[in-house]
């Protein structure tokens, strides 16, 4: 299935991309599964997504846990802890 992935702030810079559509296997149909799938690209992907303590994930603009399921067309955003205010 296809999902849209977004990256913000330091993650966007590390990965050199803000958004892309990816086709993912059924084994990657959770937040954790998608993260591992992307880490297999190696290099910056492996480095940037390795530490879940500094990577937050939102699915369809709501904060999501590692075991949250993904559905076709979902918008999945990866970003560091927020620093607004």
């Amino acid at each position, binding site marked *: 299935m296809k999902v849209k992935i977004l990256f913000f702030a330091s993650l966007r810079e590390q990965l050199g991309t803000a958004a892309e559509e990816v086709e993912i296997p059924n084994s990657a149909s959770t937040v954790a599964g998608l993260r591992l799938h992307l880490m297999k690209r190696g290099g910056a992907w492996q480095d940037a997504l390795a530490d879940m303590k500094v990577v937050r994930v939102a699915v369809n603009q709501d904060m999501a846990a590692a075991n949250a399921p993904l559905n076709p067309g979902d918008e999945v955003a990866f970003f560091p802890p927020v*620093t607004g205010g």
Partner: protein
Amino acid sequence: MKISVQQEDFDLSTEVIEISGNPRIGAVASFVGVVREVAMTLEHYPGMTESAINSIVEEARAKWQVLDLVVIHRYGDLEPGDQIVLVAVASSHRGDAFAACEFIMDFLKTQAPFWKKEHHPDGARWVDARDSDDRAAERWRSIKPKLLKS
């Protein structure tokens, strides 16, 4: 109720007047965040930012008497001394206005998807999230609103 994520600056007194029309209002508490020392660029997640602020505001309205409020958060390039964020809450009494205002600020800092990149003389760097901000948000979990009536 007004929630705005914008590049433009804002005027505190204009915004306070806007939320002070209801004759039941006896208190308006406001907070303005200002850029300290170093220029910065604020990035956000359009769409999620607004819905995250909405959720925080709804939680505040469930806990305290909020007759009206305004939340404005800026993004883009900001210079030292520039205003970043405004939260103003109108209520019948000061206890609810102060508490709701501080609650909203604490959760804006830890829940709303904004990221600050500071432009130092030796280069730009992303600001790290602070544990003290997490603790500030966490302490609200044990506070009963009924204890906070003025």
